[in-house]
């Protein structure tokens, strides 16, 4: 069990009922709800209040002509007995509705009532991993609109082949409040933003589409001129190169993963398999492998809540537990699973702050935050030079894994063939498949150029989506199966 806390600079946030007081939520109400939740003998109970206010602006055919405003307000009540969970939720924040919810969740247990918390208390100070210069509550639509108009113009100006540009800007404000039957109460304000630029280009009757997106837990200040320029540059370049790209050959070959979003390799090959619920149930290919060597000694993999401003950053998890840096693999050896409170109790360890949920409508599960590999001993040029015939993967759209069998995939949107140690022809639209432990074992070179991707990744599990980040230095995997059809 090795978690380290990297506290970011900043003011920290207040705890206790601050934000949710506006909805009439009181400590007394929470205490009564928790008492009702434990009325049938549950061992632990918690309530999770959420208020999320979203604003989306869309540009299509040259005009910002659509907007969507959304509000999610609700509360979930959970009762835990051992590894059994009862859960209820409601949008009605009145005491009678909360009590009804609590009694529903309580039914998972069947025994004499346990007392609720004698008093609620505010835990320690939270870190401040998303300090905001311009919170979204204070940004008027008139400030956002010119940004989209300018991006649209720049995208068309960047390449005469651009025919359609779509833009989408989302921002979120709001907060969560978690209170547990141990009396702890935590509130965290959680901002988020995401900008997506998609380009459709036409060249001699052929069409190609691609895009670029950036995301983070940040305010309006996130959209610096540099970042906005990069969004246009990347979206257009990633589309234009598709006209020159083809499908790579089919079969097994060395795969070099570029620094940055290639972290999807870790997310699928090991991250999910290390989520402790799968291991507690014995259904992960990594079950019973803690302490075993699974990779070269220069491979270190972490799942980190503390990357300030990252999409996957959190100050506290959705069970109210401190969230820091969890070491999945240290020196090639499997070190720590990603725990929520249930699995931490099962294994007799401290929670790692990985208990996350999509919203008040879902109970928490062990989930990743920002998953990446630490820099290694090799140099990027040396890695590419080492490959006689293989593929270099730059940009990705999605991936998936079978937890038990270990098969995992990632879909490469852009890349290059490597021939005789050099990047040659561009390739596109190819799925790569491997087996988790085998692929990690085959990571035989790791560069020193770690980059955390700034894109808007979303992870799905058990019907719940949560925002995550990922990163990687340039890495060579000695062999994976490339789903091409070219020569």
């Amino acid at each position, binding site marked *: 069990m090795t978690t380290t806390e990297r506290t970011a600079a900043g003011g920290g946030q207040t705890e206790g009922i601050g934000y949710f007081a506006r909805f009439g939520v009181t400590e007394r109400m929470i205490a009564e709800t928790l008492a009702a939740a434990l009325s049938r003998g549950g061992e632990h109970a918690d309530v999770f209040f959420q208020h999320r206010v979203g604003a989306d602006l869309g540009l299509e055919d040259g005009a910002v*002509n659509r907007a*969507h405003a959304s509000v999610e307000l609700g509360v979930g009540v959970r009762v835990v007995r051992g*590894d059994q969970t009862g859960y209820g939720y409601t949008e009605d924040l009145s005491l009678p509705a909360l009590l009804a919810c609590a009694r529903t969740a309580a039914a998972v247990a069947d025994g004499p009532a346990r007392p609720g918390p004698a008093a609620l208390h505010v835990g320690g100070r939270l870190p401040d991993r998303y300090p905001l210069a311009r919170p979204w509550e204070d940004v008027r*639509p008139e400030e956002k*609109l010119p940004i989209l108009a300018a991006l649209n113009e720049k995208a068309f100006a960047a390449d005469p082949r651009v025919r359609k540009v779509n833009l989408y800007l989302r921002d979120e404000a709001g907060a969560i409040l978690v209170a547990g039957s141990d009396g702890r109460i935590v509130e965290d304000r959680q901002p988020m933003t995401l900008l997506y630029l998609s380009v459709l280009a036409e060249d001699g009757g052929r069409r190609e589409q691609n895009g670029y997106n950036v995301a983070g837990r940040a305010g309006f200040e996130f959209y610096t001129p540099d970042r906005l320029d990069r969004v246009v540059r990347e979206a257009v370049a990633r589309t234009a190169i598709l006209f020159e790209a083809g499908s790579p050959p089919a079969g097994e070959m060395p795969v070099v993963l570029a620094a940055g979003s290639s972290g999807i390799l870790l997310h699928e090959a090991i991250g999910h398999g290390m989520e402790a619920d799968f291991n507690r149930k014995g259904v992960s290919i990594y079950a019973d492998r803690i302490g075993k060597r699974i990779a070269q000694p220069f491979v270190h993999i972490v799942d980190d809540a503390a990357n300030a401003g990252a999409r996957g950053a959190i100050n506290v998890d959705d069970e109210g537990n401190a969230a820091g840096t969890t070491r999945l693999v240290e020196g090639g050896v499997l070190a720590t699973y990603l725990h929520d409170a249930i699995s931490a109790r099962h294994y007799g360890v401290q929670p790692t702050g990985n208990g996350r949920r999509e919203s008040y409508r879902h109970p928490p599960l062990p989930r990743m935050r920002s998953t990446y590999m630490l820099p290694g001993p090799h140099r990027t040029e040396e890695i590419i030079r080492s490959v006689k015939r293989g593929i270099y993967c730059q940009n990705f759209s999605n991936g998936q894994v079978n937890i038990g069998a270990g098969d995992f995939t990632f879909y490469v949107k852009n890349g290059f063939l490597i021939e005789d140690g050099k990047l040659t022809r561009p390739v596109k639209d190819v*799925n790569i*498949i491997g087996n988790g432990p085998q692929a990690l074992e085959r990571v035989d070179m790791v560069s020193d150029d770690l980059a955390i991707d700034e894109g808007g990744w979303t992870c799905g599990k058990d019907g719940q989506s949560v925002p995550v980040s990922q990163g990687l230095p340039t890495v060579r995997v000695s062999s994976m199966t490339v789903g091409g*059809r070219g020569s």
Partner: protein
Amino acid sequence: MDLLEITRRAAALAQRKGAAEAAAASYRARHVEVSWRDGRLEKVTEATTRGLGLDLYVDGRFASVSTSDLREDALDRFVEDAVALARTLAPDPHRRLPEPALYAGQAKVDLELADPSYEALDAHARLRAAEAIEAAARGVPGAQVILSVTASASDTRGESALVQSNGFEGTRTGTDFWIGAEVTVKDPDGRRPEEYAASGGRHRSAMEPPESVGRRAAERALARIGSVKGGSAAMTMAIDARAAGRIVGALFGPLAAASLQQKRSFLEGKLGEPVGSALLDVKDDPLLPRGLGSRLYDAEGLAARAFPIFEGGRLRSYYVDTYYGRKLGMAPTTARTSNLTWSPGARSQAELLASMGEGVIVTGFLGGNSNGTTGDFSLGVRGFRVRGGRIAEPVGEMNVSGNHLQLWKRLAAVGNDPYPYSAMRTPTLVFEGVQFAGT
């Protein structure tokens, strides 16, 4: 309060706050879900939930909202802010409510979307079903290598109402009931392959006996033991009915008017043209009694009717909603698929494999993607080699790739076995000459 009345008031509120026209949609649902793992209750979730959405047409501009905060004063402020937000946007002459004439002519049929016996189910029935699923899974030959069985039973009763200020009001109530099982087994080489089975539908009677779902999940998981990677080659590919929705979805996505108008569809300009072999013959049919995708009116209030999508391989219709239809100058059909009905083949999957001889039957996809603009696809697959017309060794960690415009022309056979647990109702499909990547 009556859901329709809530919805009417929301539409009226939008107009009072300055929207010239408005559409309001609201829902209320009760959902219960039980999961059972390795001999005991694992999780029970129970909730009654609600929400409201509004489309606001303000001075020739458009904004939409959704909220679960229905407190009167909060809703009042929220709608007021959204109307103000709409006023900051560019005008869009194509944003209007549908032509009211399209609301008329709803079919006079009872779709039987709600099981009248919904209320009669008690929590113990769900638990008994889940327990029976696990017992059946653990009773199959070879079950001693089963590592874990998770069984689930869930049901929902949902009500929704739609009001459009130019003359549409509708309500509907539906139920669904599902049971399922996930089974993980131990492969001697250390892998722990998993498989699943599920069954359900609008009425409780659509669920198979729990025992058959448990047995099927266990048999499927056990069949994955010893899975190998096959060689890279062009082969005949059968796709199991349960899995085929993935590839069919990638063919149907680019039929949306939004994709056509944004030039992101490899099916643009193909109306009336052959896209597949003569066996590609599919209707969109919203009027199937008890269908998972059945409806009398769509999300815009348009009266639902069946229409052909592919006939003898030729593309007959796109999915056209009001907005992109106006941009394209095309008459609306409906925005989204309802149920798909396939002209079925005469043969079972076993008969299709017998005549296929050599190849692979794909039973599941893993990741991968399909490029809607170009039609290129590359997908991870697992399944079984087919040798001498029979299912042989399990294969996995392979990819298939190609282009939809070629793939569907190589559709060589369609089974008589539409998958009943999805609105896409896909049968087993057989394609010739598909590129597999393995060793």
